[in-house]
């Protein structure tokens, strides 16, 4: 079964790739390429897959998930300008896709247990746009 914990953070970003010229950036990212940035109330849902422990009845300790998500994601990213204040987004475009991959990298080492493994990271940029990352393909 899947166990999911959600956290939210508010941050600003600019979607602008140095590998593309101005016209391409504008065409691809639209208003998200505005040079001074803009912000979102991001939401992150992290799901672990596993079986409930026969003694505790839990797949994973939700308190621990909460601590990990706050330490690795909310603390460093909340009320920040991602491009300037949160590596690697000084060199990686902070699209929701890249955010999901980065959040996976940050939380995965802390969320594996004998009974559970990281299943997915879902990042909502708005209520109408979200991405899901399931880790590297085996």
């Amino acid at each position, binding site marked *: 079964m899947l166990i999911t914990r959600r956290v939210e953070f508010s941050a600003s970003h600019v*979607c602008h790739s140095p*590998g593309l010229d101005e016209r391409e950036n504008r065409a*691809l990212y639209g208003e998200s390429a505005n040079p001074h940035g803009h912000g979102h109330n991001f939401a992150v849902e992290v799901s672990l897959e596993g079986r409930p422990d026969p003694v505790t009845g839990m797949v994973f300790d939700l308190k621990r998930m909460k601590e990990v998500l706050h330490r690795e994601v909310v603390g460093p990213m909340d009320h920040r300008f991602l491009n300037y204040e949160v590596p690697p987004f000084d060199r990686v*475009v902070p699209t929701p*896709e890249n955010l999901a991959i980065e959040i996976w990298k940050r939380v995965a080492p802390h969320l594996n247990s004998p009974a559970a493994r990281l299943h997915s990271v879902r990042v909502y940029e708005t209520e109408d*746009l*979200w*991405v899901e990352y399931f880790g590297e*393909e085996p």
Partner: protein
Amino acid sequence: MIRLTRRYRFSASHRLDSPQLSEAQNREIYGQCNNPRGHGHDYLLEVGVRGPVDQRSGRVADVAALDGLVGSEAIRPFDHRNLNQDVAEFASTVPTAENLALEIERRLRAKWGAVFPGEWPRLERIRIRETKRNAIELP
């Protein structure tokens, strides 16, 4: 691989009434949804695409292109319309949320290659929420 989902809205009216059933059977099967003058919903449509993240753009899909495709094929033809009377396919097919999902999938697949000519992104998932209490999903 990343799955990106975009959510859209449209409002439309419909009546569930099958020409293959009698009047009594239609009333029995569809209940209130068989009301002769129809009724409407604020539909939510989720379109999920899958693909690898392009290294230069950091994206799996051009969201503006996706919006353009879904808008022209699946939102504008239905929004503020009577599905039975304004959409040719539903003159003979009952516009249930199930059939609406299949019709939207058919329309998006028909034009997909013109908008996304490469191997990726692929259309992966369609979900229609008819009300807060019912939804149809094509995985």
